[in-house]
């Protein structure tokens, strides 16, 4: 399909020439320095491997650095900075014509229903405040398997739907089978209801978007009929632990620079990040049905990280994919602790590594191949760094065995060994500069943008925050390197990752959890420290930053998971983000919704597990039954359900596993029978207050 934009949107090819030219020149420059050192006396196989590894790693670092540098220049040249925390844009979004509907879709899987619905309510309330909510419908696409969460989702949906009344604008469905996970969930939505909507805005369970941003997204899609997907970068918000606040601060401050840079060189072939994006439904349905990859998991089977692939498929079909770096009002929440962050990485790692098979797939645009390769590298970089460090240690050890010879034969004057300290130091400084300069760029940007500066707590506090953040990131880096290397190793050994839900709420890491997660890293740190200290003492001091991260992993992980240091830091004006300084309206709405005292869902008299209430409580039961799909269980299924009912009667509800409870809840006939049976047993399944005394 070839389409021509009706609206001019510059995406000249020279941008990519500039960007990739800079990246390659930097890489070649750094390599030439290192190879100059190695070539003395001929290159050994070990040195050659080190050179190769360094080439890959420096390419990765310089790609990131030049993205930040370009983004910095772009933002510096703008007349005004981004609105600090304001989710209402500098210019009011053009109201799009609304002769069509847009769906806000939120796929969920065992998430906290209270948070899910509070977030969606906040988005809807924010839309209401724009006066344009009528063109939007909200869909909770549940893949939830946990029976209690399932029932609570239904009750939350019901409560909200009743409040909104007619015409119905909030919908809910729970999939019978959660095939193909999130991508299958969205595909199911498109297949069943896609024809009803021109656009869908995909949200994650912790996503938030302001009403004005949502309107602006629709307006931009209307203005650019050749764009199939517009990604609005989400800013992390709402977490209070020290770990999360530091990460929020870093993402907010440096993220804007990186996103601007990405938008510059990616142009019409930007990427999809899986949520906080608007998608043209027809184009998505026509081109983004995902096949299963041939072969077994982890590299075959379902495509796990679907977003990059969907962006590539849209581009392959001729549609444009944009990154709206200039749009605010898009938020998400991040894992509260280092261990949760690593767990999220574990899930993403397999999906990204699977892309190694798609980098050279037929028909993809070159830039999409770059996205896929970068996704792979975001996890492969860790084992490569580990290998690089290991081999550097070996090389240093081998070098230490060679005693320098100053006098050869009859030659009377000493021959001094050639020193490469200058070259090696230059290599190190170049690498460090590329890693840390983006932080400096961000501070410079604050220096020239008074509003932005104030939103980050002023330049001195922001600078101090950057310094502490840099120190912490140095400590985190080896820990994450080891985690990710372990994940990559496990995946290469075909140990498949499940689909565990994320731990999103704030909670603190205990000693046992920290020991289990970081114990091996600490031991490795001790062993490496002892070995390098005794066998390669010169290398030991260079290695101390890495060793410190490994040795301090347990206390750092525990301390940064705490909420109180995060709160103290906030009180001191450290790690402030614009969203904390001046909370946008949609965040205020979320906070109000979460703080609101929830009314009883169905009968307030009944307590206990929610799934059991859906069996016993006539209100919850009637609601649940009304939401079940039409299905007549076959003979074998009936047998199975009867067995479960007997088990429930004989051994009590606690004897059932969650999946058995779900089975009981999934079939109307069985559930009706169970409802009657339990109400007919002695004693009564629930106790209720007696009728009020008869009036005399």
């Amino acid at each position, binding site marked *: 399909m070839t389409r021509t934009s009706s609206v001019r949107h510059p995406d000249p090819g020279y941008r990519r020439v500039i960007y990739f030219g800079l990246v390659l020149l930097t890489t070649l420059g750094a390599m030439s320095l290192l190879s100059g050192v190695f070539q003395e006396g001929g290159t050994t196989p070990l040195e050659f491997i080190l050179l190769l590894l360094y080439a890959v790693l420096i390419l990765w670092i310089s790609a990131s650095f030049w993205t930040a540098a370009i983004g910095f220049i772009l933002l510096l040249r703008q007349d005004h900075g981004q609105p600090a925390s304001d989710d209402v844009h500098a210019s009011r979004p053009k109201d799009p014509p609304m002769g069509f509907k847009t769906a806000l879709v939120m796929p969920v899987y065992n998430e906290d229903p209270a948070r899910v619905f509070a977030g969606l309510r906040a988005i809807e309330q924010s839309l209401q405040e724009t006066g344009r909510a009528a063109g939007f419908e909200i869909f909770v696409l549940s893949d939830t398997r946990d029976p209690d969460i399932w029932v609570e989702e239904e009750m939350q949906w019901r409560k909200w739907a009743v409040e909104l009344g*007619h015409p119905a604008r909030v919908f809910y469905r729970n999939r019978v089978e959660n095939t193909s996970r999130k991508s299958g969930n969205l595909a199911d939505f498109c297949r069943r209801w*896609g024809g009803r909507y021109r656009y869908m805005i995909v949200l994650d369970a912790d996503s938030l978007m302001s009403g004005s941003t949502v309107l602006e997204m629709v307006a931009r899609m209307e203005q650019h009929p050749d764009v199939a997907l517009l990604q609005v970068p989400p800013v992390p918000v709402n977490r209070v632990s020290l770990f999360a606040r530091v990460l929020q601060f870093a993402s907010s401050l440096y993220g804007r620079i990186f996103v601007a840079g990405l938008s510059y060189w990616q142009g019409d072939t930007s990427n999809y990040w899986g949520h906080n994006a608007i998608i043209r*439904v027809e184009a998505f349905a*026509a081109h983004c*049905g995902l096949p299963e990859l041939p072969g077994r998991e982890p590299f075959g089977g379902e495509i796990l990280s679907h977003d990059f692939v969907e962006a590539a498929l849209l581009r392959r079909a001729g549609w444009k994919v944009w990154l709206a770096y200039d749009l605010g009002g898009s938020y998400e929440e991040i894992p509260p602790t280092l261990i949760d962050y690593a767990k999220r990485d574990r899930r993403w790692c397999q999906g990204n590594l699977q892309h190694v098979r798609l980098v050279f797939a*037929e028909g993809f645009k070159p830039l999409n191949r770059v996205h896929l390769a970068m996704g792979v590298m975001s996890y492969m970089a860790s084992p490569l760094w580990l290998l690089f460090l290991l081999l550097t240690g070996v090389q240093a050890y081998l070098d230490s065995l060679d005693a320098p010879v100053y006098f050869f034969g009859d030659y009377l004057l000493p021959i001094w060994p050639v020193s490469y300290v200058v070259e090696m130091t230059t290599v190190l400084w170049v690498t460090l500069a590329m890693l840390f300069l983006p932080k400096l760029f961000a501070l410079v940007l604050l220096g020239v943008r008074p509003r932005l500066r104030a939103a980050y707590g002023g330049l001195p506090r922001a600078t101090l925050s950057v310094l502490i953040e840099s120190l912490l990131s140095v400590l985190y880096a080896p820990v994450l390197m080891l985690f990710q290397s372990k994940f990559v190793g496990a995946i290469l050994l075909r140990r498949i990752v499940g689909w565990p839900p994320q731990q999103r709420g704030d909670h603190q890491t205990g000693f046992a959890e920290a020991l289990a997660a970081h114990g091996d890293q600490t031991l490795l740190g001790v062993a490496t420290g002892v070995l390098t200290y005794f066998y390669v003492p010169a290398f030991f001091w260079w290695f101390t930053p890495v060793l410190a991260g490994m040795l301090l992993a347990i206390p750092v992980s525990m301390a940064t998971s705490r909420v109180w240091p995060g709160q103290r830091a906030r009180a001191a004006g450290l790690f402030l983000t614009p969203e904390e300084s001046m909370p946008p309206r949609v965040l205020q709405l979320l906070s109000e919704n979460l703080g609101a005292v929830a009314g009883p869902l169905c009968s307030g008299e009944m307590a206990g597990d929610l799934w059991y209430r859906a069996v016993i409580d006539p209100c919850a039961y009637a609601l649940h039954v009304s939401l079940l799909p039409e299905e007549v269980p076959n003979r074998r299924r009936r047998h199975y359900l009867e067995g479960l009912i*007997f088990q429930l009667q004989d051994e009590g509800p606690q004897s059932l596993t969650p999946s058995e409870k779900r089975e009981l809840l999934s079939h109307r006939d069985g559930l009706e029978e169970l409802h*009657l049976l339990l109400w*007919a047993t002695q004693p009564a399944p629930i106790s209720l207050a007696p009728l009020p005394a008869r009036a005399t």
Partner: protein
Amino acid sequence: MGPPVIGNGADLSDLGVEVDSSAGPPVGASLQDWEQAMPRVAHYLRALGVRDHRDHARLIEAIRSRFVRRVSTHLVADATETGIEATAALLDAWIAAQLGPGVPEPQQRMARAAVLGGVVEGWVAVWSGRVDEPLGERIIAASLSPAPEPAPLSMVPQRIGPCCHRLVRSIAKVLRGKPAERPHQPADPGRTS
């Protein structure tokens, strides 16, 4: 209380489970068993949201009539279960009557969820017959559909030819001593389009 029976009236004997015939003919519930069932039926009514004594008395009477009809015409195993069943059936029949003829079952279920969810105020008095007021429109208005009418789109899996799959498979086959895949052989069976 009888065994669980799921779907189309099939019970364990339908499903090939042996029933002990030496125990004599089954002893069913009788009219006198109403006294045994009544307290639980009253309890169930309270769970349904019946709070007023007058409604309670009227509904108990109506349920008793259903119970009597049931035990007079059918062999029922358990009086309490029959009483609860009669209560549920009475409610469903009332909802169906309020909605009018021709309302499909899914909509009736949504209506029951709306009524029991407490959205239709005063429904118990109308159900018991103490108040004469048509509630059909209010029930329909409160019956919220969980999803809109279907508007399907076709979404077929796209063809993605991952890199080197056939090459790797051929090499693997050669290594295992099997003949390599020939070029004219069909594409990877795992490929879905």
